[in-house]
């Protein structure tokens, strides 16, 4: 029981409530952004500017009937929402939200859990979320939910690989997996996004797919699968799935900020003496910087949802396996060689630009399968009228 333990527990207690409140208002923000994009008003009746809408929604979720359909596997059906929620709720713990602080005579890190496996923990916990979805789909005994669960599983495990490779490359660059070291290294140097712009893009795409967000929300596409894996769910059980999804989104945005955008670091505004006299004021400023960056990423995700059309399943798998994974492996080899040669990380930027140029110019000459959206000629296809009949 040290000062670090108490700091972490207090951080957990405060931040989990902050995040839960943030999630309910993020849903309101998402509906507002949707209405702005589609040129309508959005929720505006509950309170001023619809600000009480999250409270009304939460209350309604709680008051609705909690119904188990007859065909479901009762145990798994009730377990699945909790399984989807818990990994999301604990994933953010290693984000070093507030930086270092002086507590009595010892120095502590303001984070949910300052563990030394760092970002690997997020990968381990984040991939647990797939169990909730596949169990929810399987236990419902509904063909739509089953298909939705299968699709979500295939999608999440496929995008797990480039995601893991991105984290691996960042660890390779800095030689540590600890979250606070990664932020310190970026704060005293250059943000990783300037060294590895392709990797940052790759990570962003993969985290969208991991969270089942548009344009990768195939698990719940309304037009094909009714509601996807949560078709049979009602009341708070449905709400827990949504909560888990949003929490996962916040965590993913947090890791993106942590790995590529410098975590709590504010450019040009430095602490007087880093780590020596850090009081509660600086902790709050750093926390604000971290949360602000996360909010920007989340707003971008929401605008993307109302901008891009959804991918088809074969396009989704093709993107993961035939584009992102080879690209990530190529980046891993490049980064390994650069770290070996020890020329300095400026060469990584050069390598990134060179890779982008190479991919751009070589792509048309690579052998590829049949085009995904090829035009089927009318003559000779099964849609063309038989010519002999027409002649007679």
């Amino acid at each position, binding site marked *: *029981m040290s000062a*670090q333990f108490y700091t*972490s527990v207090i951080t*957990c*207690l405060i931040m*989990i409530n902050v995040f839960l409140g943030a999630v309910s208002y993020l849903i309101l923000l998402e509906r507002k952004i949707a209405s702005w994009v589609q040129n309508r008003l959005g929720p505006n009746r509950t309170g001023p500017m619809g600000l009480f809408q999250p409270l009304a929604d939460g209350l309604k979720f*709680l008051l*609705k*009937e909690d*119904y188990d*359909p*007859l*065909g479901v596997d009762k145990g798994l059906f009730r377990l699945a*929402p909790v399984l989807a*929620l*818990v990994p999301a*709720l*604990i994933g953010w*713990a290693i984000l070093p939200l507030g930086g270092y602080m002086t507590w009595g005579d010892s*120095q502590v890190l303001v984070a949910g*859990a300052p*563990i030394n496996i760092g970002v*690997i923990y997020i990968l381990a916990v984040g991939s647990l979320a797939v169990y909730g979805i596949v169990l929810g789909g399987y236990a*419902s*005994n*509904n063909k739509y939910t*089953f298909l939705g669960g*299968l699709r979500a*599983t*295939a999608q999440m*495990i*496929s995008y797990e690989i480039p995601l*893991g490779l991105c984290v*691996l*490359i960042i*660890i390779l*660059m*800095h*030689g540590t*997996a*600890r979250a606070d*070291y990664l932020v*310190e290294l970026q704060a005293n140097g250059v943000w990783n996004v300037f060294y590895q712009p392709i990797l940052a893009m790759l990570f962003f795409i993969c985290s969208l797919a991991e969270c089942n967000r548009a344009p990768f929300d195939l698990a719940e596409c309304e037009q094909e699968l*009714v509601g996807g894996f949560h078709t*049979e769910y009602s*009341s*708070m059980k449905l*709400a*827990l799935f949504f909560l888990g999804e949003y929490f996962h989104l916040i965590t993913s945005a947090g890791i993106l900020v942590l790995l590529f955008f410098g975590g709590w670091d504010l450019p040009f505004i430095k602490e007087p003496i*880093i*780590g020596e006299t850090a009081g509660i004021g600086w902790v709050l400023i750093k926390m604000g910087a971290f949360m602000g960056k996360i909010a920007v990423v989340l707003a971008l995700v929401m605008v993307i949802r109302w901008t891009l059309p959804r991918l088809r399943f*074969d396009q989704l*798998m*093709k993107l993961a*396996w*035939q584009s992102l994974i080879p690209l990530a492996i190529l980046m891993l*080899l490049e980064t*390994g060689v650069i*770290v070996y040669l*020890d020329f300095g990380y400026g060469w990584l930027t050069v390598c990134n630009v060179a890779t982008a140029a190479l991919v751009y110019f070589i792509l048309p000459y690579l052998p590829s399968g049949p085009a995904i959206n090829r035009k089927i000629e009318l003559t000779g296809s099964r849609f063309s009228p038989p010519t002999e009949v027409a002649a007679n």
Partner: protein
Amino acid sequence: MTHPPAIDSFSHYGPLAVLILMAVGFGVANLILTHIIGPSRKGEIKGSTYESGMNPIGTARQRFNVRFYIVAIAFLIFDVEIVFLYPWATVFGGLADSSGLPELFLARMLFFVFTTIIAFVYAWRKGVFRYD
């Protein structure tokens, strides 16, 4: 980097246990609350599987497309590869130049990734990633 506090002791996993308890408690409490508060009216038609108004034919738990299975196997290959590369990535940058270890480590990694690339190309040519 000035004075990062040493974080090595096992007690730093303690807050994580507290957090997991809180998360599980939150989820279970919500499920129980909604079960108690909400109304309950059961019925034969209401309890049937919702498949857009059609009467459901058979059960949903039947055979599914083998491609999902193959994707899962390909995922296992890559995931295990990545897991093996994590320790390598952590120490590779800090190896001493004069010891001759950097060359050895780089060669090993290249060989390891090369074998995986062969497997990847094989799967690609076999049409594992084709969905049309």
